[in-house]
């Protein structure tokens, strides 16, 4: 294993890594998150699915406080989510995030994108940061693009760089906010394959997605959300073959039968 491996020695160790208790959030009059209780264990891959506007992206973004919450608590690795400031920045460094629109730093090269957090947050040595960045870029299959700017890459390549940028911080957990929704169909698989590999390596992942194939093959658990609530949680097999709630049955019937 190389030094950039994300295999955790404590993969086998149990324990709750991310715990949401009674989380509530409003956007004006809209109650986007209603009494959310969700626990994610170390090494677990949880896929959050549901119709548009069900609050799944918001849920994902509350976990590193890109969205604030109105009520309830979120703890990561036993520590409650800090308010703004140094503590929050430190926590965010431990929580990797991959966005729908990639959000690579447009004025920096691919390599610089992956090095920046290591240099400025982890205060790593430049040479080591560069080695690690190159190794991670190789791992996600874009090593040859290191010196290009994000705009010169395809969407799939950009998203893989974004994954490498998040991994460079050695995160405890990775959040994926609809990582393939902005991609052309033929580029979706290259990103999903990287995510599959991460899941196999034991990374704790929370993935908001519409990719049911990924949910089936990589998830330990599927969380189904609708109208700001968690309606149902089950293993992928159970959820897709025998959903418990009418809302989930309705949702699945609309997306699966063609």
């Amino acid at each position, binding site marked *: 294993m190389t030094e950039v491996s994300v295999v955790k020695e404590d993969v086998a160790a149990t324990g709750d890594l991310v715990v949401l208790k009674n989380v509530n959030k409003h956007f004006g009059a809209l109650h986007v998150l209603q009494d959310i209780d969700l626990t994610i264990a170390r090494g677990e891959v949880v896929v959050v699915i549901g119709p548009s506007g069900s609050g799944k992206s918001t849920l994902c973004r509350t976990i590193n406080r890109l969205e604030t919450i109105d009520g309830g608590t979120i703890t990561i690795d036993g520590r409650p989510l800090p308010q703004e400031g140094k503590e929050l920045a430190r926590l965010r460094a431990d929580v990797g995030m991959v966005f729908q629109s990639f959000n690579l730093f447009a*004025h920096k090269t691919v390599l610089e994108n992956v090095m920046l957090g290591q240099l400025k947050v982890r205060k790593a040595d430049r040479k080591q940061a560069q080695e690690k960045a190159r190794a991670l870029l190789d791992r996600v299959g874009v090593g040859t693009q290191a010196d290009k700017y994000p705009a010169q890459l395809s969407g799939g390549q950009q998203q893989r760089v974004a994954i490498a940028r998040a991994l460079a911080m050695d995160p405890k957990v990775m959040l994926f906010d609809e990582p393939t929704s902005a991609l052309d169909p033929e580029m979706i698989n290259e990103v999903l394959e990287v995510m599959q590999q991460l899941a196999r390596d034991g990374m704790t992942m929370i993935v908001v997605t519409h990719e049911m194939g990924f949910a089936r093959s990589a998830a330990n658990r599927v969380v189904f959300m609708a109208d700001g609530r968690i309606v149902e949680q089950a293993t992928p097999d159970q959820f897709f073959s025998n959903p418990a709630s009418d809302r989930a049955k309705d949702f699945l019937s609309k997306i699966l039968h063609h």
Partner: protein
Amino acid sequence: MPSTYATHPEAREIVFDFLQGYDVLGAFWTTVKLTVFSAVGSLVWGTLLAAMRVSPVPLMRGFGTAYVNIVRNIPLTVIVIFTSLGLADIFGVTLGASDFKVQGFRLAVLGLTAYTAAFVCEALRSGINTVPVGQAEAARAIGLNFSQTLRLIVLPQAFRAVIGPLANVLIALTKNTTVAAAISVAEAAALMKTMIENEAQTVAVGAVFAFGFVVLTLPTGLFLGWLAKRLAVKR
């Protein structure tokens, strides 16, 4: 066709004899120095103001907004005269200068900086608005704090987006340095006034100074326009 000056060298002396005895280049050098010092000062102060205006601290936002709205709405002449009659004469601010000439120069730079910074701030703030929100979110998501996010991610992209508007501000500043004449700084406009009083060829004097300013500002505009294209952030 041979030029008149080549065949009759004395013609040059006759046509331009109104320039004799005046240090036109020296006066324009003072203009250049006023411009450069004020440009650097207003870039720094304007950037700080812009940072305040987008900061999460309400007090700083309030200060930035108040400063810009007050200062950009006061005529530059009033500000520059205030630095001399107000700051220097009443409050005794001399900016470490020992003689009157140096003091006037420094006060003029202070006034020009205070005024121009308001415009730099607003240009920069519009540049910050061109940077997609996702850029700052991604920066925060890898653990950068507010000032790192601003310094490393948002401002570098914002600056590249507003090189054009900043070139406008710089050209305006170059011409605005003429206001320093109001507090007796010996820059180009002050010398022009003296020469118009003493010489008969007033139109020629005006033309020489107009030409001098075009020589200063035209290359600035062309160079920064080229730079803006070169440094544009591709998205």
